[in-house]
């Protein structure tokens, strides 16, 4: 019985202990549960962490390899580019050298050619000298021409004077004004007077009278000695370059028409053939008289003589159209 009691007590104690333990366990359950969760979570974390780090490591390896690969590729590219650039620089530098030389050559030869410029300037000064010389010669020539013309004018004036003063010619009895006995030789005016042949005054306008018929040829040779022959040509061309037109002739009505029969007769019948001239002795004087009369009647007096200005105009026109003057020295 004691044992039963002991066992019952033990059961009681067991129950109490069981109760205590379970109460303790109950109390510790929470804590232990939490601890267990913690441990478990920690372990899970470790596992995951290990997995992740494993993944990381592998990823790193992959990235490392990949990056190395791309970097090397880029590097190779960079090397190629640098090489290319170096080559281009070199080429460019060489090209610059070539261009520099070429441009220097080209500019010196074609654009700013020193020797061309020098020869141009030398040629220019020579040309200047040449032109100056030629112009001087030309001026000489022109001056001579002008002098000649002056002298011709003077001589004409003198001859005209001589013609007006023809009466002062010296005679056998009485020496003239220009032929003083105290002079060693006669004055040139005297010589001119001797040469001039007097012509009776005709009723021409003033400008014409200065061309007497017996115009002395000796006056023309007086120029020949002083000047070279080419002058004659030049004045000749100078005079002839101005064409002198004939005067506007007033048409005279043709009077005295002959009968047609007479004209036909004249044509058909030959004149009498004799060896003797059929002219009279006084033929020459008669012809001269006729000529004189025709001349005096030829140019009408005062063509349009109305008003003084117009008179002057007609005067000037008449004098300008007289061809005889300039031809008297040929």
């Amino acid at each position, binding site marked *: 019985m004691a044992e039963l009691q002991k066992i019952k007590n033990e059961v009681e104690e067991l129950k109490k202990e069981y109760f205590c333990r379970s109460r303790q366990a109950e109390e510790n359950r929470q804590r232990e549960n939490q601890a267990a969760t913690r441990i478990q979570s920690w372990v899970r974390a470790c596992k995951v962490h290990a997995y992740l780090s494993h993944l990381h490591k592998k990823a790193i390896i992959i990235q490392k390899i990949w990056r190395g690969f791309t970097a090397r590729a880029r590097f190779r590219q960079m090397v190629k580019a640098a090489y290319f650039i170096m080559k281009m620089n070199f080429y460019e530098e060489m090209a610059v050298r070539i261009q520099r030389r070429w441009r220097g050559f080209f500019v010196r030869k074609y654009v700013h050619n020193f020797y061309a*410029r020098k020869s*141009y*300037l030398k040629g*220019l*000064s020579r*040309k*200047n*000298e*040449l*032109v*100056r010389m030629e*112009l*001087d010669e*030309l*001026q000489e020539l*022109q001056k001579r021409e*002008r002098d000649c013309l002056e002298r011709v004018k003077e001589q004409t004036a003198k001859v005209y004077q001589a013609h007006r003063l023809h009466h002062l010619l010296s005679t056998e009895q009485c020496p003239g004004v220009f032929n003083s006995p105290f002079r060693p030789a006669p004055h040139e005016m005297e010589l001119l007077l001797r040469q001039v042949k007097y012509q009776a005054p005709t009723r021409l306008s003033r400008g014409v009278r200065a061309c007497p018929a017996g115009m002395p040829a000796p006056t023309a040779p007086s120029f020949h000695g002083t000047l070279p022959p080419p002058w004659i040509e030049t004045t000749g061309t*100078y005079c002839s370059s*101005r*064409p002198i*037109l004939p005067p506007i002739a007033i048409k005279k009505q043709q009077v005295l028409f002959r009968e047609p029969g007479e004209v036909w007769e004249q044509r058909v019948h030959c004149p009498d053939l004799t060896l003797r001239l059929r002219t009279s002795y006084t033929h020459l004087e008669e012809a001269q008289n006729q000529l004189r009369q025709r001349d005096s009647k030829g140019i009408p007096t005062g063509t*349009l003589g*109305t*008003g*003084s*200005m*117009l008179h002057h*105009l007609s005067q000037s026109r008449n004098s300008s159209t007289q061809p005889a003057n300039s031809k008297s020295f040929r």
Partner: protein
Amino acid sequence: MSKKQIVRVFDEYHKSRMQFVQTVADLATEPRNIQVLQNAGVMSMLRALLLDVNPSIQQTAALTLGRLADHSDDLATVVVEENILPSLVQSLALQNRFYKKAAAFVLRAVAKHSPELSQAVVACGGVDALVSCLDDFDPGVKEAAAWALGSIAQHNASLCQSVVDAGAVPLLVLCLLEPEMALKRITASTLSEICKHTPELAQTVVDNGAISHLAQMIFNPDAKLKRQVFSALCQVSKHSEGLAEIVIEANIFPAALACLQDPDKYVKKNVVTLMREIVKHSLALSEMIVACGAIGVVIDYLGHCQGSLRLPGIMLLGYVAAHSENLAMAVILSKGVHQLALCLAEEHESHIKAAIAWSIGQIGHHTPEHAKAVATCDLLTKLLELYVDASSSEDLQAKSKKALKTILQKCTYLLGLEPLLYDVPTTILKHVVGQISKVTQLVLPHDSQARRLFVTSGGLKRLQEIEAEPGSPLQEHIDTINNSYPEEIVRYYSPNYSQVLLEQLEHYEPA
């Protein structure tokens, strides 16, 4: 009264009218009579006589009117106001050649005074009548008509346009070919008046083939004709390069150079003016003219003539030199600069001196060679004098200053620059010193001879004497120059060196 007596009355009246009009015509040739005549009311009498029955009275009346109008422009205004012009113009078409000449003379005398009077002549149809006169056979009529057209056209472009619109130009060109010298002269002068206003008018004249005829007339010995011909060619070529080229193509050069020896001074002047107008357009034209050897001849011409006749020659040299430095060198080699210096010394007119200053500037501004050539003729000092002179006009001062500045910028010839350091206003001085400093930096390190010359000729000394504010560009230039010489030399030439030495003496204690 018998018939004879009645007729005699009319004859006497006719004779007295004739006598009156002839006497008045003779009186009108004397200027002092004209005022008296005007006071006596001659204008209205002449207007009545213009419509007279007898043609010779009409002609003499017209001639008298012309002489009166020629004398002064109030009389010409009176002629216009009295409405004489319309009747004149109408009868121009009908009457004989003497009347036409006298009427054209009246129109010319009226038109020549002022543009308003010319406008009055144009307004009453004078231009058409004159152009129909140009068609006449008589050369005197043509001459009078051409002269009248010329005096209308000379005033301004619109009057000229009305002359050209009436178809005057082809007829004028035909008149050029006539043998009479006076007609040729007048036609050439009329063409010159027409061409001078605008390029279009000049082009019209050229289109009618005037240039070739004018070019042939260069060889004519008559001096007055040559004057007008060259003046006409000059007016044509002054407008544009195209027209100048047309003139050149007529082959007048080098033949025109022969005319530079003509004894008539206006012929020479007009030739040189023609060359100047051609040259100023372009480089190619100037090269062509220079290649004919014109420069030497022009420089001789400048030597022979005086006064305002020189002006076109001077401007020619300036234009030629302005185009390129080759041509400027050509001018220098032909002794152009020397001649310009002579002209500058001889001339007193302000505008001629201004032209000379401008030309010198054009010649000298290209390269140091040119500047040296200018400086050796002592022209820089002359330009300076012109600039400084108070009596020079503003234009002259401006031109000489500009010329001086442009030449200075290229001048490396120190001996030439040196006289400019004395008596110079500060504006120029800083340019001069600046240029000297530039030269000293760039040129002198290589040229010891020049350095020595600069020092011995007193330039360095003068530089030290210049007082400049410290820090101003002038002082900087002076410092730059001083730096390129050894210090002892600079100190030696400084102004108070002897004082400084003597002061040193005071502080000196013999050891």
